[in-house]
C-alpha cells in the first residue's frame, strides 16, 4: 500500500509519509535576556500577548523591545490611553525618530489605528497597548477582531505585541506571557550618586523584580511528542523566569542584570487591584 501511494504521488510529493516539522518562526529579541532565554524572543508574523496587573513590568518589556527593534527597524505604538512616556523610553534606549506613536483616546480609535498600521505594512514591531483601558470594555472586544489581527500579520515580518491587563487574544496569540510583580526594591545604600542634602531621610525607589510565565507558546508546544518515548531534556523547559528593572537613571553603567531562571512557584500572587 505504502509503495503504491508513494509511486502514485511520485514527482508531486517528495515523501508523503515523512512527518514535516513546521519551520520555527523567526523571532526577535525582547531586549531582556531572561525573557529571551525563556521564550526565545517575539515571533515575527504572530501575535504576542503580554498581560498582567498594573506595575507588573509590561511597560519595561515594551521599552526594551522597542529599544531593540528601533535600532534596525521602524516600529509603531498604538497607545489606547495615551500613557506612553517618551522620556523614560529614550532613557531605555528607544530611538524615537523610528517610532510612530498613535495617541488614541479609547479602544475604538486604537483598533482602527492598529488595522491601518498592519495593512500599511513595513513595520518591524507594532504594539497595541491597552493596559490602561477599562477591563470591562476590553473583554467586549469580539474574538473575531483578534483573529483578524492575527491574519493581518501572518506571513509578514511584523511582530504584533499586545499589552493588556487580562488575556484576551486566547488562541489567536502565538505567545502569551503573564507578568507579575515580585517585589519593589527600595534602598538608599546602593545608590552611588547619592545626594542626601536634597532629600529627606528615607528610602529611594531602586527598581522592581518581576516574574514572567508562559501561558501559551505555539512554537514550543507544536513540537511532536511520542508517548512511547521518554521526554528528553530538550523537551522539558522552564515556563517561568524572573527579571529585574532598574529605576535609577544615574548608575546605569554600573548596574548589572540580575537575571535568573526561577523554579515554578506554586503560589500565585493575586492582583492587588
Amino acid at each position, binding site marked *: 500500500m505504502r509503495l503504491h501511494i508513494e509511486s502514485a504521488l511520485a514527482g508531486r510529493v517528495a515523501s508523503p509519509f515523512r512527518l514535516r516539522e513546521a519551520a520555527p518562526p523567526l523571532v526577535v529579541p525582547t531586549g531582556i535576556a531572561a525573557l529571551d532565554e525563556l521564550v526565545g524572543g517575539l515571533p515575527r508574523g504572530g501575535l504576542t500577548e503580554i498581560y498582567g496587573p498594573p506595575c507588573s513590568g509590561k511597560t519595561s518589556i515594551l521599552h526594551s523591545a522597542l529599544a531593540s527593534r528601533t535600532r534596525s527597524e521602524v516600529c509603531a505604538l498604538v497607545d489606547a490611553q495615551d500613557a506612553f512616556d517618551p522620556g523614560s523610553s529614550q532613557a531605555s534606549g528607544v530611538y524615537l525618530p523610528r517610532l510612530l506613536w498613535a495617541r*488614541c483616546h479609547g479602544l475604538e480609535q486604537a483598533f482602527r489605528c492598529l488595522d491601518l498600521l498592519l495593512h500599511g505594512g513595513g513595520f518591524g514591531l507594532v504594539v497595541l497597548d491597552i*493596559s490602561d483601558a477599562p477591563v470591562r470594555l476590553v473583554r467586549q472586544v469580539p474574538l473575531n477582531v483578534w483573529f483578524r489581527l492575527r491574519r493581518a500579520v501572518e506571513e509578514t515580518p511584523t511582530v504584533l505585541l499586545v499589552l493588556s491587563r487580562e488575556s484576551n487574544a486566547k488562541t489567536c496569540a502565538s505567545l502569551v506571557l503573564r507578568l507579575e510583580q515580585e517585589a519593589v526594591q*527600595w534602598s538608599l545604600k546602593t545608590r552611588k550618586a547619592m545626594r542626601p542634602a536634597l532629600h529627606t531621610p528615607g528610602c529611594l525607589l531602586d527598581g522592581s523584580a518581576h516574574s514572567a510565565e508562559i501561558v501559551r507558546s505555539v512554537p514550543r508546544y507544536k513540537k511532536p511528542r511520542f508517548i512511547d518515548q521518554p521526554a528528553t531534556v530538550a523537551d522539558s523547559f522552564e515556563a517561568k523566569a524572573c527579571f529585574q528593572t532598574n529605576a535609577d537613571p544615574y548608575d546605569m553603567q554600573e548596574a548589572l542584570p540580575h537575571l535568573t531562571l526561577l523554579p515554578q512557584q506554586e503560589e500565585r500572587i493575586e492582583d492587588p487591584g
Partner: protein
Amino acid sequence: MAFGAIFVPHFSLQAVERLESGIRNRPLVLVDGPAPTFRVIAFNHLANQLGVTSGLTKAAAAEFQGVEIRQRRKEQEVAAHAALLDAAWSFSPLVEDTATDTVLLDLAGLTTLFGSHENIARQIKSRCSALGLDVHVAISANAETARVLARALPGPTIVPDGQEADPLKTLPVALLSPGEELAEVFRQWGVTTCGSLAALPVLSLSECVGQEGVRLHALASGNGNRPLVIAEPTHLFEESLELDDAVEELEPLSFLLGRLLDQLCLRLSTRALAVRTIQLQLELEPRFENAFDSSREFLRARQLPETLHCSLVLPRPVRDAKLLLKLLRLRLQANPPKAPVQKLHMRAEPDRPVAFEGGLFLPAVPDPDKLELTLARISSVVGESNVGSPELLDSYRPDAFRMQKFSAPSPESSSAPSMPGEAEVSKMGFRFVRPPMPANVTFQGGRPVRISFQGKSWNVVQASGPWRASGEWWEENGWQEDAWDLELGFPGRAPARAVYCIVFDSRQKKWFVRGSYD
C-alpha cells in the same frame, strides 16, 4: 536643422475638453461675452451637425437637444497652454511660445534620441494626446513653414529638405495671416493660394505692397526661416476649474479634484518631475442665509467670496494622482468646506522624483507613499497632533515633548546611530496619566500614609520624597512641584504591588497622580 510646430485647433474648446474627457463625445458649445448676453464662440463637430453656429445666444444654443454649454474660462486656457509648453519641453529645451495655441521647437540633434522625424512627430502627437490635447504637428527645415503647415494640416506633416514650397502651394494665402489691407489687395489680384503668391515677381511685389509683401512671398515660397525666440522653462503647475453649479458634497468634489490631479500629475511626469507640495484653494459660494440680505455689506462680501485653503506637503515627491486624491480627501474630510464649492484652484510645487533602491540585507521599511496615506488615515481618526514620532524638548519640565511628523527612514540610514543612553539592563518603565488625575493625600508625620483617587483608597506602604522641582518661573506657564514615589496597597490586602508617582502642584495647591512605574 529642423523645426517642429505644434498647433492646437479649437484651442478654447480643447481647454474645456481637457478637464472633462467624457464631454468629447457629446455636442459641446462654448459661450463667452458679458453676462447675461453670452454668445457662442466655438463648438465641436457634433454640435455643428446639430446646426449650432457662431454668434448664437446661450439661450438659443440651449434649444438644441443634448448640447452641453460651457462658459469660456481664462484659467483653463492658461493651464492648457502650460500643458502644451510642457509637452514641447519634454522633447526639446529650445521652444518658442509663438501663440496661445502654437509652439515651435528646435529639433536639431533629436533624431539620435527619438529616431526619425516621423517618429518624433508621432511621439509629440501622442504625448499631447495624453495631456488631453488633439494637436497638429508639422516638421520642416524652417520654422515658419512648419508653423503654417501645422495650422493647415492635421498631420503629422514631414517636409523633406529643400521641398518646403511644395506642400504650401495649395494652401490658402489667408494662412500666412496677411493684414486686412494686404488681404484685400491679394483678393483683388486673384491671389488665393500660397503657390500663386510665390509665383509673383518679388521686385514688383515689393514696389506694390512693400516689405510685408516680400515677407509673405518668402513664407509662401518656403523660405521663411528665422531664429526662434526661446522661452525659459517654467515650473508653474496650476489647474483651475470653475463650476456653473456649485458642489456641496465631498464625493462629487473628489471627482473634480481627481481631474485636476490627473492633469497635474500628467504634466509633471511629462517634465520628469513629481509633486512635493499641493496647494488647494476652494472658492465657496456665499452662505444661503446671506442671500436674503441685500445690504451694502453683503454685496461687498459677495465680491470677495470665502475661500478654503488646504495644503499637502509630502515627505518625498509623488506622481501618483490616486494617492494624492486620497490624501486630499482625508484632509477635506477632517476640515470640510462650510459652503458649496464654486471654484477649484490647485497648484503643485514640483521636485525631482527620488528613486530608492532597497537592499537585500536591509530590513524592510514602510513604503513612503503607503506610509503617507496610512498616517493621513490615522490622523483622521486620532487627530493630526496625536500621531507622529515624539521628540523630547530641552526642558526639565516633566513630560516635555512635542510630536513630529513621522517619516520612513531612507535605506541609506537604515541603521540607527549608537545612542548614548543605550541600556545594558532593562529600566523600569513609566506610564503617564494624561491629564494628571486629581488625588487626595493624607499625611502623618510629614509622610503620606493614605491616598485616594478614582474613587479608591490606598494605603501607602513605602514612600520616597518629596522631590522638589521647578522651572520656567520667569514665564507665565512656570511650574513648581513636589513629587513622591509611593508603593500602594489596598487596606487589608497584601502584598501591595502598585508603585505610583504623585505630585503636589504648588501653584494650584493640589495633589495629582502623574503616573505609575511599570
